């Protein structure tokens, strides 16, 4: 890396840390009221919760809003900008961007009273790097001193701090048996877990020794899982059992806009659907023309209009994992092109149309059945017959991924999964060939894509990365290794007596520290 680039990086880092301090100072403004309880219903199915027998573990919490009980080294705010959380400094150790040094906050206690050390961070990441896709790049951790830890990566990564903000990457007490880490549900977060019923309910109480002094405001927090039970959740809200409902069905928005004493809080962005196109032997999706034909046949604008009620609540995707709200996102020029779809099908030997295998989906979001019914109808106009089948949320991930073991006959499926918005580095890395979400895409275009990704990761300046990211998105539009037709803006409803409950494009990143309620 040149001196100039290094100066840019360090300058950006200094500005970044200054902004973080200011932000934290602002976040620590005292609030007018302390005490009370808040109960919220969660409407989206956690695809991993269905397999959970211990929802205290951060990987299996009932709704993945892990930040109620846990903290990470960094946090992504509502504008998807990085903020420090348990770290006070994150910086590259050298120009290669392969080694990152993190200074951890002092005086942080776990719920069991122990002080957090760099050893706990290292132990936690021993678990994460084996389990979390974004942390897999961490080759090893090195405890420099009780408050400093180094992360050694397999390659340079200019956006590595965002990995430390991933919801899985919470800090937990060390345990000699790293498989046991997290099982007790002990974190450093604002609330301590008091009870858990996997897939159904969790209760929390305020952690008096929380490192953000004076926070949280609430005495108790409770989350009730009501996935697939919109009417029950709505009745509970109207009966004043719930103070808030997260991730509501978009069809409820108009109705809830008229609900008395209720606020609708929309996030700037939200999850989108990935349609995974498997490329195992014999799959129709080995042919890029068929993939592109399917992509071109989907009426994305109609999808946003019909399923989400317009662009206020939904957005058109571009077959990459980037959300439309991301400054690096390149909007598709022609979201739908039926003539192109028909031509590509004809070139692929299907002039009279094609019948695709069954597309499986789970109702992870309340609107998914309508979403895929609409897609099924819209692609029919291009001569594509698309059978669809709903599967339960429980066990869905294992069902669609086939335990990643083809030798056992467990092929991954032509199926949907949901992805949330992240920084471009993590988002675009998800289309890597060795990932289920790309359908194990391969070939020259995939190689070119990964070469660009590697270059972006070694490029410290965000402006320079933008051009690379644009090129990567163009490859995805051309190749369509997977299809990402449209996404949602997350919507929550809450009583107007609940304050500071801010919605988040990453529904798992909502914070509860600052939430309080008036009388």
């Amino acid at each position, binding site marked *: 890396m040149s001196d100039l680039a290094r100066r840019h990086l360090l300058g950006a880092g200094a500005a970044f840390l200054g902004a973080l301090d200011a932000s934290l100072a602002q976040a620590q403004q005292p609030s007018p009221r302390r005490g009370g309880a808040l109960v919220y219903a969660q409407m989206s199915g956690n695809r991993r919760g269905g397999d959970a027998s211990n929802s205290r573990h951060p990987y299996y919490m009932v709704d993945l809003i892990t930040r109620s009980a846990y903290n990470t080294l960094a946090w992504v705010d509502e504008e998807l900008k990085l903020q420090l959380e348990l770290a006070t400094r994150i910086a590259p150790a050298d120009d290669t961007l392969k080694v990152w040094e993190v200074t951890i906050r002092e005086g942080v206690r776990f719920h069991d009273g122990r002080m957090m050390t760099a050893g706990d961070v290292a132990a936690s990441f021993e678990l994460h790097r084996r389990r979390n896709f974004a942390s897999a790049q961490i080759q090893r951790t090195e405890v420099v001193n009780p408050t400093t830890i180094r992360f050694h990566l397999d390659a340079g990564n200019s956006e590595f701090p965002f990995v430390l903000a991933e919801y899985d990457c919470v800090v937990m007490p060390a345990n000699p048996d790293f498989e046991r880490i997290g099982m007790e549900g002990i974190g450093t977060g604002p609330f301590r877990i008091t009870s858990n019923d996997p897939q*159904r*309910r969790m209760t929390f109480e305020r952690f008096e020794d929380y490192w953000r002094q004076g926070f949280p405001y609430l005495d108790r927090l409770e989350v009730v899982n009501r996935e697939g*039970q919109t009417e*029950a959740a709505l*009745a509970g809200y109207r*009966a004043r*059992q719930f103070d808030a409902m997260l991730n509501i069905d978009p069809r409820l928005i108009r109705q809830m806009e008229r609900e008395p004493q209720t606020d609708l809080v929309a996030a700037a962005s939200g999850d989108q659907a990935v349609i995974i196109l498997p490329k195992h032997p*014999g799959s129709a999706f080995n042919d890029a023309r068929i993939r592109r034909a399917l992509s071109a046949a989907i009426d994305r604008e109609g999808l946003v209009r019909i399923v989400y009620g317009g662009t206020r609540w939904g957005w058109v995707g571009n077959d990459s994992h980037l959300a439309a709200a991301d400054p690096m996102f390149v909007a598709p020029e022609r979201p739908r092109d039926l003539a192109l779809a028909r031509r590509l099908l004809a070139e692929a030997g299907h002039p009279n149309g094609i019948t695709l295998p069954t597309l499986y989906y789970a109702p992870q979001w309340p609107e998914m059945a309508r979403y895929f019914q609409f897609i099924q109808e819209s692609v029919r106009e291009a001569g594509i017959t698309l059978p669809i089948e709903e599967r339960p949320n*429980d*066990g869905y991930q294992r069902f669609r991924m086939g335990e990643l073991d083809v030798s056992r006959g467990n092929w991954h499926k032509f199926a949907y999964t949901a992805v949330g918005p992240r920084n471009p580095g993590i988002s675009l890395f998800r289309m890597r060939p060795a990932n289920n979400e790309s359908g194990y895409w391969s070939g020259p275009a995939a190689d070119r894509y990964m070469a660009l990704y590697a270059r972006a990761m070694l490029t410290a300046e965000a402006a320079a990365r933008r051009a690379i990211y644009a090129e990567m998105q163009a490859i995805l539009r051309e190749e369509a290794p997977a299809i990402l037709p449209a996404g949602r803006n997350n919507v929550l409803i809450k009583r107007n007596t609940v304050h500071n409950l801010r919605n988040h494009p990453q529904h798992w990143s909502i914070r509860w520290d600052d939430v309080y309620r008036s009388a």
Partner: protein
Amino acid sequence: MIALILRRGALSLVTLFLLASFIFFATEVLPGDALDVSLSADEIANMPAEVMARRKAELGLDRPILERYWGFLGGLLRFDLGRTIITRAPVGEIIAMPLRNSVALAGVTLLLALPVALAIAMAAAQAKGRAVDNAVSGAAIIGYSIPEFVTGLLLIAVFAVWWPLFPATITASTNDPLGVLLAAAPLAIATTIIGSVAYLGRILRVGLIEVMAADFVERLHLSGIPRWRIIWLHALPAAMIPGLSAAALYAASLVSGVVVVEMVFAYPGIGAELVRAVTRREVHVVQAIALAAAICVVLFNLLADLGIAALDPRTRR
């Protein structure tokens, strides 16, 4: 009476054995085994025969049918209901608490519904053909005819939303103490009670009317015995005999059949667990719940038979 208990008990065991066998053969032998139903159509179409064979072996589906059958029965005797296909969790652990919750809901429903149904039936029977009887009979028909989900939603609308006295949806945990769970479920209990009172009230009313018209009641009247004694000591026990059988069957159906109520109110019972198991294609869980329902039917029938025998000595022969 002891001989009767032994005889009925033995008959119940035979019935249970036959039911368990039926459940096994219905779910394991008919086309589509536990593996087939947990795979997608594409998977079955594409999976090589040797891979399919290996996966069947992992689930023990490659063993001869009789061997599996004896294994199934042996497991039942050891209270081992097998493991789930997806998570390999013990089925017994999965259904234990939901079953407890459903039995509690059914028990509370019966405890509350029986006296109310009895009181209504007696009032109607005594006023046969008059306004009270017509009103009670009409209300019973309406109460019995309205689907439980409609009753439940009406109760939610009135007593949770418009007049917020009770919770609309149950947020208590599956493992919460029964007191906590039932205290959170007044509308779910009320929904099942309304249907139960209507059903049991009609049966008891008919029984009482028939008994009150019987010769022996007329003779008791002519003997100068007070009416209240005739009703409580003579007519009611006789009228209870057909009612008991109906109540037993109804109680059994309450344990396994309150799926709708459990879904409307998010009550963590066996009905909701059954729905989940069916959607997940968890054959062993479905088998276990079917077996639990069968045990409830047999057990409640046994209790009803013994109750009838206690009330009517002629049936002891």
